[in-house]
């Protein structure tokens, strides 16, 4: 009898202690796949790209069936604070917002100029918003980015994340920045951070309707643009894509990339491509007579992808010459991005951290006007690129039909 009572009590306890208070059924949730922040006067305008589950389930939606229903819907809410705006969203949606699957967070330039501390605080304070969301910036209205569909991906928010990860893995021009990485960069000694720009290319009205997916070409599309530079939590300026790759080189963020270069110093046209497969950068600050010099040691390796230059690549000297050309190319890139950072007076490379680590005493002296000190630094790039392989051919195809 005692045993039976025990078992009954145990079973009852199970039904009580399984955490029913926090129970939310899946069909009560609005899963947010991307969100954006805009300003309207001094109010926050949050926009959400919410997944419509029935449209993305197999058989209907984009990939299968007729594709009659849009996979996502976008709506906005406004408030004096961010979470006030979020709570106002409950006036127009039957479901509770769920942010854990948010893949992309898009902020407008206006918000970035105002400062993003509040957004970061929100993500660190609450458990529902993840720190692994990708952060992007856009020049105009951030909401309009959420409204665009992407051809190959069902859910545009996830598509944006895939574009970024593909780009940073294969070209490294614009780094993919997650919210925690942004927070780390802002709290580093240099206080400089970068955020990739997302732009909508095409007619303002395009890309919103499912009709765009019925064509084989897209005039209107989302793409990664330039690189926004932040000084602390505030927007400081833009870097072009070319400058972006230089920044990636100096800040040791290059994973792999394709570099076009000229085979001889005097050539006018770019006729070769190099596939960079590994790259590592070391920053070596040097203090000489009270003047700061930054040694930038870049060591990379990779292989030749494309050539249209008469050269016998079985000769070590020829490969060496190509390596020198490449090094010259990267050096120019580094110098250009250095000039750009000096222009903006933002340390996006992590120079401050390098100085702090090597010269803690000197750092204490200069840290209060680092922006000033930063722009007076001399840089010394030392670039070593090794061309490990030249591909499956030794000579360019051109040599088979030339008369030389």
């Amino acid at each position: 009898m005692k045993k039976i009572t025990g078992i009954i009590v145990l079973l009852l306890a199970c039904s009580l202690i399984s955490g029913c208070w926090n129970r939310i059924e899946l069909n009560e949730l609005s899963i947010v796949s991307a969100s954006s922040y805009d300003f309207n006067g001094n109010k926050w305008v949050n926009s959400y790209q919410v997944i419509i589950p029935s449209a993305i389930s197999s058989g209907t939606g984009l990939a299968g069936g007729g594709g009659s229903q849009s996979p996502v819907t976008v709506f906005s809410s406004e408030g004096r604070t961010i979470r006030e705006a979020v709570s106002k969203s409950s006036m127009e949606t039957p479901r509770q917002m769920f942010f854990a699957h948010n893949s992309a967070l898009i902020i407008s330039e206006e918000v970035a100029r105002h400062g993003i501390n509040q957004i970061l605080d929100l993500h660190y304070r609450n458990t529902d918003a993840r720190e692994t969301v990708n952060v992007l910036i856009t020049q105009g209205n951030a909401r309009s980015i959420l409204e665009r569909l992407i051809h190959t991906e069902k859910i545009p928010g996830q598509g944006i994340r895939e574009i970024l990860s593909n780009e940073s893995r294969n070209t490294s021009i614009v780094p993919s920045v997650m919210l925690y990485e942004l927070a780390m960069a802002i709290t580093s000694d240099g206080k400089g951070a970068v955020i990739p720009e997302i732009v909508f290319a095409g007619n303002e009205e395009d890309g919103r309707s499912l009709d765009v997916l019925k064509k084989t070409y897209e005039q209107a599309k989302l793409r990664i643009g330039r690189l926004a530079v932040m000084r602390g939590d505030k927007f400081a300026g833009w870097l072009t894509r070319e400058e972006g790759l230089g920044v990636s080189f100096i800040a040791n963020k290059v994973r792999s990339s394709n570099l076009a270069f000229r085979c001889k110093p005097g050539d006018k046209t770019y006729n070769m491509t190099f596939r960079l497969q590994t790259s590592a950068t070391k920053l070596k600050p040097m203090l000489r007579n009270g003047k700061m010099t930054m040694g930038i040691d870049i060591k990379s390796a990779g292989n030749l992808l494309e050539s249209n230059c008469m050269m016998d690549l079985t000769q070590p000297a020829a490969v060496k010459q190509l390596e020198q050309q490449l090094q010259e190319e990267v050096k120019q890139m580094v110098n250009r991005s250095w000039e750009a950072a000096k222009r903006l007076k933002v340390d996006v490379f992590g120079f401050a951290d390098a100085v702090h680590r090597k010269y803690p005493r000197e750092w204490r002296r200069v840290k209060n006007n680092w922006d000033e000190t930063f722009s007076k630094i001399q840089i010394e790039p030392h670039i070593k690129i090794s061309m490990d392989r030249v591909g499956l051919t030794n000579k360019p195809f051109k040599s088979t039909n030339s008369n030389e």
Partner: protein
Amino acid sequence: MIIKMTKLQGILLMMSTIAPTAIVSVPSVVVQLSEQDAWVSIIIAMVAGGLFSLLIGSICRQNTQTTFLDWLRVRLGSKAGTAIGILLTYYYLISVVIEMREFVNFIGENVLSRTPVYFLLIITVAVVMYGVSQGIVNIARVNLIVLPLSLLVFIVTGILLLKNIHIENLLPLWEHPLRKVAQGSMTPTTWLLQVSILLLIAPFMSKPEEAGKVGMWGIVLTSIELGIIVVAAITIIGSRLISIMSYPTFYMIGIIQIGTFLERIDLLFISIWICMMYVKMSIVMFATFHCFIHTFRIRNEKPFLLCLGLFTILTTMYAWPKSVDLAYFSKTVLIPYAITFNVLIPLVIWLLLRFIKPNPMKAGK
């Protein structure tokens, strides 16, 4: 036959007494004071804790027969024994209340945000009380499963985090004056001092004379675990960001993202941590109950177990209703409080034992 615990069980029990709360609260406090030099603070704490465990060991060596409080009564007289018993009961009760509050706060903030606190408390206390009723040796045996499992999770997450490590975050070395670094070692030392619970547990070990060694190993291993977590947090998150966070340890596991299929595995770590917390609270609650029973020489224990559980629930509920109260308490009172009970009382006992020679006539009275 009375089953006693082995040396290994003792060492693991010490780790479980200190580590679960320490790995959560230590990193952000230490890093606030000594930033990238935080690991030095942990080493200082380890040395201090190690020396202290020698003292505990030398007391434990003298008692090989009966429970600690009964032995004190015989050795130092009934009044002194009872006084020490009351103080220890009080200390362990407050400790268990603090831990329980920290635990339900964490669960409430991170996992079950809508479940009322009292419900979390009732379940926690029920589990802990069940553990206590089974005795310390059984707690030690359960711990033999939980702790190795937690170390496994620890190692796996460590491997997954390898690519996020920026080892250069530890530079420059020795940037902070020794004063700051020593100040940073205060909190970890306070946690490590909890090894004084060995006084009560040693009689349950098969070889009580080895208590000093057990304490030493417990402290060294826990400090290594703590040190690894602090270094990992600094190299992964950076010292400035750590100092604003309440739970940096869980945060750094939360950023693991491998492709799109493996992410947000901090929940795995939280689950195993919850098990560790149950073991820890059971150990400290056992100490409370043990002191209580032996101070007041209670024969029929079961009803008091229930009462103590109820008392703990109510104290935890009403002592710090807001998280800010507990944070303020931890910042101001906790360190002197823990040092008083963990260091001064053992020290006084040790001194008394030196000066009051055993008196065979007094024994048993």
